[in-house]
């Protein structure tokens, strides 16, 4: 593994974000190493989604700066920046009037890929996320929730971005489907080695998927720990999380580390 100090894929430097008088995020300093899966864990309103959206400039900081691949993301053209970063959200947000193939192939198409190349990329991605090829001609409303989120992941990967932002991508799925997708995510991540920032409020998911867990509370970063450290942590917030999820989370940490 690369030394983390060399070139973090994403770096937050003293980032704050305020709406009116509400301090959503205060003094955030955080580095995401290339190829790791950093999980932002916290309750609703802790600022984790805002943190995620700061990376692709869906939210602009009131103070501080965010570096993506070593350069401030405010100095990059915002459209170019976003096309180099995959984005997956809980509601998926597939375009309902496009087939699966057009949904996945949209960014390649507007990037000027020829039809053949887009088509073979779509086939490749469908296989990668474990979907049959014939699904390409279907419309989003004809898919199950799990299939839809698989398409969402495939779409985010379409133009082969190095960074993937995932905002509770499996949060709306039933437990069995969620388990499938988590397992597939780990396999995918072994093959692709993307830099992933993953938002969740589910400790089990964080322990299973994360190489590191950044715990957030009330707009502040509490601590960043590996899953193994997290379950043994004496930090009051981390300990509270482990208590709330009860017995058996330690084994989840071990599973994720494999």
């Amino acid at each position, binding site marked *: 593994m690369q030394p983390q100090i060399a070139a973090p894929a994403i770096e937050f430097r003293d980032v704050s974000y305020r709406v009116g008088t509400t301090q959503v995020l205060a003094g955030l300093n955080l580095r995401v190493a290339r190829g790791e899966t950093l999980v932002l864990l916290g309750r609703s309103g802790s600022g984790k989604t805002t943190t995620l959206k700061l990376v*692709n400039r*869906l939210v602009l900081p009131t103070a501080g700066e965010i570096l993506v691949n070593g350069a401030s993301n405010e100095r990059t053209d*915002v*459209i*170019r*920046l*976003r*096309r*180099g*970063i995959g*984005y997956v*959200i809980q*509601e*998926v*947000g*597939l*375009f*309902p*009037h496009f087939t699966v193939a057009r949904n996945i192939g*949209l*960014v390649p198409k*507007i990037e000027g890929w020829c039809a053949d190349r887009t088509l073979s990329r779509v086939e490749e991605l469908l296989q990668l996320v474990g979907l049959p090829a014939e699904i390409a001609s279907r*419309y989003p*409303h004809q898919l199950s929730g799990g299939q839809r989120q698989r398409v*969402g992941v495939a*779409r*985010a990967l379409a133009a082969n971005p190095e960074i993937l*932002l995932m905002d509770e991508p499996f949060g709306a799925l039933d437990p069995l489907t969620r388990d499938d997708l988590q397992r597939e995510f780990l396999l995918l991540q072994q093959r692709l080695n993307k830099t992933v920032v993953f938002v969740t409020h589910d400790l089990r998911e964080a322990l299973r998927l994360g190489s590191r867990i950044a715990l957030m509370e009330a707009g502040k970063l509490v601590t960043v720990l590996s899953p193994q450290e997290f379950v043994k942590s004496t930090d009051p917030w981390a300990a509270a999380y482990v208590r709330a999820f009860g017995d058996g989370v330690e084994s989840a940490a071990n599973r994720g580390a494999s």
Partner: protein
Amino acid sequence: MNVLQFIVQNRAQFFDLTGEHLWLVGWSTLLAMVVGIPLGILIAHRPRLSNPVLGSANIVQAIPGLALFGFLLPVPWLGARSDRMAILALTLYALLPIIRNTYTGIRGVDPAALEAGRGMGLTDLQLLFQVELPLAVSVILSGVRIAIVISVGLATIAAAIGAGGLGEFIFRGLAMVDNRVILAGAIPAAILALLADFGVGWLERRLRPR
């Protein structure tokens, strides 16, 4: 039967008046779309403008037809030709349903699809033409449909200021106290409205996203 006889006897004039009627409705609907759809898109993206714009369109809608024609009479370029005046008045009436439906259609697009699209790096224009408009098109067209049906009916009043159209028969029939002549204007106007309603409705269903 008598109505049909009257129309056949006066068929040259009947076709002229129908043509004028369609001319008035066609131009006013086109103008209302050219102005109303961009305005609807604008207020869907700038919610602060939505109340003033929709409010103004509402007020225009509330002005009685004859009075609106009267207001436009002294306007220099417009007052010179009655069909210009009629087209402008009809345009103003057609604006509200078109603006409102464009606004509603675009606001109704799934916010998650927009957020995902923005996050993927679509530009505002790409989002508009690839996502928002295709998803809103059937709602926008149903606004156009309402506008056309209103215009076809309202255009009969245009005859009062000499702009022609099927209203000529209606006003003449009223003056002559001859129901035949009134119906020779009213029935074709109603049929036009129904045809337009049907035609645009068909288009609306064709373009509706699945």
